[in-house]
């Protein structure tokens, strides 16, 4: 059973006892003990996943790390958030997924036009099962709870991941003033309704709707 812990806030330490984790290719910064690193083609989802990822553009180069000891992972000094899954599903952009326990299933899922307009692409990565996953964010993520009667709207550029049973829909804050160059700066928003948690980073990616 791999043990995930944070070493500081930007380095992930995983204690392995002969078992394996899947991590983003090249994200290992140090290890103790004996480790083997094996590149998994196509995001480690098998042949079908490989084809899907190629087709959907939700590409992920993943390696399998197996051994005894402690392995340290980091990605460009971004903050690392540990997510414990107990049978829930984590939806995360492939760019933000750093490491998962080998027992978790990863795959791609269709987010529809919502994703496209926000610049996140049509597809997103899905992580299912029980175990630990590590998600990166630019600045420590703020975790916001969504429940019935308490919907949340998020700037698509600041969205990192979400868990639980959430509906995501795109809302437009744009009006006729946007066309005149006097928009509110928040023309595209993603609305989350249902029950779950949304991870939001304190920074914004450059997105299509970002400057409108």
């Amino acid at each position, binding site marked *: 059973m791999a043990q995930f812990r944070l070493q500081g806030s930007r380095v992930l330490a995983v204690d392995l006892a002969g078992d394996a984790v899947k991590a983003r290719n090249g994200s290992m910064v140090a290890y103790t003990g004996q480790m083997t690193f094996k590149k998994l083609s196509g995001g480690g989802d098998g042949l079908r996943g490989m084809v899907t990822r190629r087709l959907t553009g939700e590409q992920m180069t993943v390696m399998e790390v197996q051994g005894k000891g402690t392995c340290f992972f980091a990605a460009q000094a971004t903050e690392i958030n540990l997510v414990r899954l107990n049978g829930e599903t984590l939806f995360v952009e492939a760019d933000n997924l750093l490491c998962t326990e080998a027992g978790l299933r990863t795959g791609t899922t269709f987010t529809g036009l919502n994703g496209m307009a926000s610049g996140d692409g049509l597809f997103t990565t899905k992580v299912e099962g029980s175990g630990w996953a590590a998600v990166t964010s630019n*600045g420590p993520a*703020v975790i916001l709870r969504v429940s019935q009667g*308490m919907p949340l709207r998020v*700037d698509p550029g600041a969205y990192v991941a979400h868990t639980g049973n959430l509906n995501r829909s795109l809302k437009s*804050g744009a009006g006729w*003033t946007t066309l005149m160059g006097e928009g509110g*700066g928040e023309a595209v928003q993603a609305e989350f309704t249902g029950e779950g948690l949304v991870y*939001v*980073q304190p920074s*914004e990616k450059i997105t299509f709707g970002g400057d409108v």
Partner: protein
Amino acid sequence: MSYPPQPTLPWSTAGQGPVTYDAYSLPVNDNVNPYAFSVELNGSYFLQKGKMVAYYGDISFQGVGHGALDRLLGQQFNSPLHASDWVVAQGRGKMVLADRAFDLNSYDLDQGNLTVRSGNLLAFEPTLALKQSIIPGFLTLLGTGKFVAASNGPVHFMEPPVRVDPQALVGWADCPAPCHHYDHHYMQGVLGGLRRLTGLGGASGEEHQFEFVGAGQVLLQSSEALMPERSVGQVDAEPGVPGGGLPQQGYQGGHQGGGQQLPNLQVPGLGNLGDLGRRFGL
């Protein structure tokens, strides 16, 4: 002035899970973590375009210059020159603000004044009035209320008299405006003159400072990487108005962290030879 909260690690590494927030547990007008600030909105709030990352409740964002806001703007937003960078959030709810993972701090002004670099100011309560400072690239807030400013690294407070590096300056409160200070030695002699004219050789990069005197506080960021400048627009050409009619790209614009600290480099049209030009009556 209230001091900003001490930065803490986002959450402990052992055992307990990460902190989750909802519309009720989000802090009221306080930092969520050093990089995110939560505003409880009931009415209106001014913020820089694109700095909202998430919100609960019913909030609308309107560009400054919108007809319905004219009255509010006339009273509180007296800096129309860069109006297109600002947005008014209106409604009820909780709103999380952030800016490229820079450190955010909130400050309370009580019948005070504070001048801040235009790129660092993120949001402010409408009880404050925003005006353009006569120092190019800076904005002044007047009145009573709270505002949020970003900095590259935590902010430090200094008491005048103090000389600061231009790139580390975030702003100043309740004290007279800074003046330029050049190390005298650096200007002396033939070599000094040559250096001044050509910008070549011998500079340590710290010969030029801003000097503050009087009573008040000076805010410094803990790095010399400038925040990207926000254009504050063009001041009308008028006798006696500093920078009037000229593009507002003084010492801090366009030279991001480049250590460009030599005098007389920014005379428009003449560039490096500004001083020489004046001497020869050009």
